[in-house]
């Protein structure tokens, strides 16, 4: 199994009701798969897949996750002003 530390922000955080969680997934899981699992569990999450980051770097949906990875799903950003 692969243990992931997952972070949620803004609308995601409110939909999930938590800022972070630990999730265990099978080997061979992609970051896109992780999002689909979360969508199943938390139906209030957005229907369109957001950007994702692995260990604080943007990652494509088909990127494999690894044990200990820090995963973040990034709602459309709106900082700056």
């Amino acid at each position, binding site marked *: 199994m692969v243990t992931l530390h997952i972070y949620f922000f803004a609308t995601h955080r409110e939909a999930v009701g938590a800022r972070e969680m630990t999730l265990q997934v099978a080997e061979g899981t992609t970051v896109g798969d992780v999002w689909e699992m979360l969508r199943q569990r938390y139906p209030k999450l957005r229907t369109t897949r957001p950007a994702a980051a692995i260990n604080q770097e943007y990652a494509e949906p088909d990127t494999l996750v690894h044990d200990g990875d820090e995963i973040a799903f990034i709602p459309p950003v*709106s900082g700056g002003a």
Partner: protein
Amino acid sequence: MFIITDQPLNTAEVEAAIARPDAGAIVTFQGVVRDNNLGKQVSYLVYEAYPPMAEKVMAQIGDEIAARWPGARTAIAHRTGKLEIGEASVVIAVSTAHRADAFDACHYAIDRLKAIVPVWKKEVWEGGEYWIEGSAAASEDEQAALDRLETLDPGSS
């Protein structure tokens, strides 16, 4: 200096981070909380960030600027938490030898920040609140920001 902080921003400190003897121009951008947006009266804003990644991405923007405008130095501070009208949410300072580069590079920095830095804004008004969703992060590359800059000259706007 590339920082996320929940403290009021200190513009002079951000500018001091990029001062140097061969820099003749400093251009500073401050994003300030407005009292209205899209015709609605705003009570205050709340900014949330993914701080470690946001600081990395801001530093990446500084690297992009140094690559495109050699010698340019960039510092960025973004605030989180509750901000009242008139408070600064972001301060970006860029120093260069000559002034045109400082304007262009600083403008590029705020456009890139709004496109890719993981920070989110919630508008709160009397009786409601709303998370603003802006740019689908990571979907925009550097060239898009540069292309947009080119269309922003005063003659065409």
